[in-house]
């Protein structure tokens, strides 16, 4: 079956229908859960019901007696072979790096932490047997709130660390030489605003729960996992368990979403790895949704204290940021680094000259936090875009006008920011003008005034969010400066098959991002082969031995650039062969529309397919030319890329119930050169949906004993189609200058921009009531409460 139609023409820029779809729309997919191997054992994991406790007794004997059960073990049984889960990003020299046993050995530090494992012949028996495991705990004091955790005498999450503070990381523009001094800016300021914003805890909630299959038979131990990072996972398994890297193969088959939530090396993967080695048989662990929510990593969870200094003409002169970032009980692969990424984004698109960022990571008895779509950048963008609105209100200036007065003008690029990054390109004016036009900004403002005038119980609010983000993670040099444990390069290989078909091997690991389609488009153009003749292989360390996987909107900007480079090498390699076939001098040849032709002479030339066949037979190759057209490339980006855009949101707020409805939403994004507009729009829609979900619907809530109260989709309210609006998308295209594709990355843009747009719109609707902030998610109750509190405060202050 083929679901793609063939049309001639340049591929890049076309709205190609996706290659991936054929298997996904027919149910012929390879999810990890679909893998079944002979003799495979099914694992079930017993998890701690307590948030902090010493394990005083475990006995699995009764479980072993049950039908179908083959084995059971605890952390003590595998203590010397299970390894410790790695953190690849200690952001400071003195970051506290606690040990992280996959299976708890003698202490548990959050609810849901694995404490024992049963292996049985079927999943039901494994689950039944969990109930037969005897385990006793001695409860220890629990700390859930970050400020409580930092207070004197707080219970310690890790006793031997002696503190709940994981690290403090500072960027000060005066010290770094990238700008002025914030204290000075504050004392010189005509207006100073101080605000506290809270980034609630979120759950990534990818739709495919995590699962893992490990087969220890054969020469390599093979792990299939629903992961975003097969390459990093293999390395970490090797480094942590001592099994040599070349004896491990990791495969990410079809993966059902990640959003950073599968950018992790998980206890469950390590447990399955240990179990398979222990039993010498294949094992499978399929996680239930409630397990994913309880123990898969969470995102966000920061308290942000922000001080903005400005002049009365609206010029911002300084920003100081003090963050508390909840790490949870352990450090995941990049837990400490996530809030630090935000350090470079609080200054956003603005030119203010003084900046200080200080972030402390805090341990609590909760599930660890880690990357979630945007990772550090949505948090930063939220805070700055919220406080810019507060400043606009304070000065009685239109919020867009205020931003105009402060943003980098299009003719000022490249621009080195107060956080030390160099933005290569952008045009904030163009994106904003287009957004205002699509939105009908002035008309909506008029309607807002009318509704205010008439005292309509449903008030209209307009929210603005202008943003930029750093994508294309990342220049290895900068990652090194930030003490990240790896580089930021990416790889691509191109293999020419004898029939002229092309196999592309990429080090990126897509799980919804359509790399098979976009990469094929790039290759089709570069090699002059039909789109359908390209096969993109990924996510298996046996075919793609090297790569840094997919996160941080890096795949196209970095992996795509590597692909271009590999294609260029193929074209160069084939040239002497084509010349030989055409009996001419290679220097006289040009490669146009997939053909090598003698310059200036149209007509028949030789295609890459011709050369590939010639190389295959190797009957008649020029002397000294290797019988090989294949090429590899590794690209390390020089700089990040900086997508930007302007989002406008109109909300209708029912002031009686507090319910918010999004009436219209316009997103104008500049993601540089667009490879496939259909895919770009899809990424924008999905990103905005997740950003709206943070603004309105989602929050992971713990009680004071460390129980997760929102551990299923019943309480953790992921929005459905009935809850979300249609998005109007627009686009400006200012190509990235750092690499040949000009693409900047689009995976996270929507999420970063939309949350403040929505909250700004709600607050804007309620300004006349005296409301100036609402904590996220802005549930009907919180909105109602904010109106009520503001009214009460007014009445209080009206009284003589």
């Amino acid at each position, binding site marked *: 079956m083929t679901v793609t139609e063939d049309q001639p023409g340049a591929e890049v820029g076309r709205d190609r229908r996706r290659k991936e779809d054929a298997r996904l729309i027919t149910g012929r997919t390879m999810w990890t859960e679909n893998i079944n191997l002979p003799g495979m054992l099914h694992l079930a994991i017993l998890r701690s019901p307590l948030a902090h406790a010493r394990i005083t007794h475990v006995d699995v004997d009764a479980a072993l007696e049950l039908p179908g059960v083959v084995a059971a073990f605890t952390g003590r049984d595998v203590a010397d072979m299970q390894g410790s889960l790695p953190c690849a990003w200690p952001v400071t020299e003195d970051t506290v790096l606690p040990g992280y046993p996959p299976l708890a050995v003698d202490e548990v530090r959050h609810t849901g932490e694995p404490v024992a494992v049963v292996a049985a012949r079927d999943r039901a028996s494994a*689950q039944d047997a969990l109930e037969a495991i005897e385990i006793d705990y001695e409860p220890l004091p629990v700390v859930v709130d970050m400020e409580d955790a930092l207070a004197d005498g707080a219970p310690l999450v890790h006793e031997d660390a002696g503190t709940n503070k994981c690290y403090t990381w500072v960027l000060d523009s005066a010290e770094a030489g990238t700008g002025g001094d914030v204290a000075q800016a504050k004392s010189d300021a005509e207006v100073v605003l101080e605000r506290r914003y809270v980034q609630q805890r979120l759950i990534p909630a990818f739709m495919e729960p995590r699962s893992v299959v490990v087969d220890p038979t054969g020469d390599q131990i093979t792990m299939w996992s629903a992961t975003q990072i097969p390459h990093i996972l293999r390395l970490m398994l090797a480094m942590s368990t001592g099994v040599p890297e070349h004896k491990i193969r990791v495969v990410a088959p079809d993966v059902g979403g990640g959003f950073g939530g599968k950018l992790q090396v998980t206890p469950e993967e390590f447990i399955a790895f240990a179990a398979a080695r222990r039993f010498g048989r294949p094992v499978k662990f399929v996680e239930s949704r409630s397990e994913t929510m309880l123990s898969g990593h969470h995102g966000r969870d920061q308290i942000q204290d922000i001080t903005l200094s400005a002049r009365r003409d609206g010029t911002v002169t300084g920003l100081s940021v003090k963050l508390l970032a909840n790490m949870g009980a352990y450090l995941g692969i990049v837990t400490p680094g996530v809030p630090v990424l935000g350090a470079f984004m609080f200054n956003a698109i603005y030119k203010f000259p003084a900046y200080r960022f200080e972030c402390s990571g805090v341990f609590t008895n909760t599930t660890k936090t880690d990357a979630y779509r945007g990772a550090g950048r949505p948090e930063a963008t939220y805070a700055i875009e919220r406080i810019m609105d507060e400043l606009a209100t304070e000065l009685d200036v239109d919020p867009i006008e205020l931003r105009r007065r402060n943003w980098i003008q299009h003719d000022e690029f490249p621009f080195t920011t107060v956080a030390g990054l160099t933005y290569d390109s952008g045009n904030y004016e163009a994106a904003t003008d287009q957004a205002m036009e699509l939105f009908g900004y002035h008309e909506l403002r008029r309607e807002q005034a009318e509704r205010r005038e008439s005292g309509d119980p449903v008030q209209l609010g307009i929210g603005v969010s202008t943003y930029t983000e750093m994508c294309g993670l990342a220049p290895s040099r900068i990652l090194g400066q930030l003490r990240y444990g790896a580089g930021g390069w990416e790889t691509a290989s191109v293999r020419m098959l004898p029939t002229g078909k092309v196999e592309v091997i990429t080090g990126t690991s897509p799980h919804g991002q359509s790399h098979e389609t976009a990469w094929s488009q790039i290759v089709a153009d570069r090699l002059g082969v039909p789109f359908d003749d390209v096969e993109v292989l990924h996510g298996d360390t046996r075919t793609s031995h090297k790569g840094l996987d997919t996160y941080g909107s890096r795949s196209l900007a970095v992996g795509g650039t590597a692909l271009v480079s590999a294609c260029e090498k193929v074209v160069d390699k084939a040239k002497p062969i084509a010349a030989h076939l055409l009996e001419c001098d290679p220097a006289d040849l040009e490669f146009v529309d997939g053909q090598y032709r003698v310059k200036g002479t149209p007509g028949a030339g030789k295609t890459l397919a011709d050369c590939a066949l010639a190389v295959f037979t190797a009957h008649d190759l020029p002397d000294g030319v290797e019988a090989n057209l294949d090429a590899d490339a590794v690209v390390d980006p020089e700089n990040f890329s900086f997508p930007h855009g302007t989002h406008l949101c109109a909300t209708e707020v029912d002031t009686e119930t507090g319910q918010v409805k999004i009436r219209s939403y316009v997103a104008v994004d500049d993601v540089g050169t667009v490879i496939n507009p259909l895919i770009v729009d899809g990424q924008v829609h999905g990103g905005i949906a997740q950003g709206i979900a943070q603004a309105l619907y989602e929050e992971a*809530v713990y009680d004071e004993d460390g129980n997760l109260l929102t551990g299923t989709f019943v309480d953790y309210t992921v929005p459905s189609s009935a809850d979300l609006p249609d998005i109007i998308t627009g686009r400006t295209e200012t190509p990235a200058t750092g690499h040949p594709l000009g693409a900047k990355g689009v995976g996270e843009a929507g999420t970063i921009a939309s949350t403040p747009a929505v909250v700004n719109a709600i607050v804007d609707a309620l300004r006349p009531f005296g409301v100036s902030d609402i904590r996220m998610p802005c549930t*009907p109750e919180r909105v109602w409460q904010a109106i009520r509190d503001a009214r009460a405060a007014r009445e209080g202050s009206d009284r003589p």
Partner: protein
Amino acid sequence: MIPAAFDYARPTSVDDAVGTLADGGEDAKILAGGQSLIPMLRLRLAAPTVVVDLGGVNDLRGVTDDGNHLVIGAMTTHDEIMNDPAVRSHAPLIAQATRTVADRQVRHMGTFGGSLAHADPAGDLPSVTMALDASFEIAGPSGRRSVPASEFFVDYLTTAMDPGEILVAVRVPKMSDSSGWGSHYEKLNRVAQAWALVGVAAMVQRDNGTMSDARVALTNMGPRPVRAHGVEEALRGAPATADAVGAAVAHAAENTEPADDVTASAEYRTHLASVLTGRAVRTAASI
């Protein structure tokens, strides 16, 4: 997750079912549509030893008209009810409220009787039956009995039925447009698929310019549905105006004990009760 093991029976008559249930003892559980029970089995929040599936009892399914009442079989699905012509014309409140229950898939399996027997305080249909003064036909080892809605719902997930009893049908008095009754079910939920934070079922009878009679019942304002008698009294005989409704809703939260939990505070629920009562009553009375 996979449910704990249980034995399974699929009787074909009500008497059979009562017998099987009795044989099953204390830990036997009835399965209707399974849309509440199966999630609880999966999370192992319930672990019955025997599951008695009523799916094979044809007598329990369907709607009949016996003159002044509709008799709705317990196993009639939500989907069948909202599309049933008799329900739509004689008990439009049920049809309209049922449409707001869960989603299409759940409504294809979930049953009217299961919803009521489950007695979830956030369920939409218990308060609807309260507003309609429906009565519940119950079969058990000692025969059949009938319980009025006002006595059927006892507490959180608890009804007046004994463990060995089966809800057979619900009798609903016909109250439709032609007799001057208007009705409306109003609820507020956080996302479309979520259960109601608060719901209000309102029936208002109009006579020229006045509201001659009214019945109002609240969802999720306590461990069981409650009739808002104070509102009803204030409406009865009052002019059909927004002002009159506005005055009456002040009584909405009387005698309620709303929960204070992660989804909403008691205070907010109390506030919603009056706002949503106003909306439900105004729509029911076409104001």
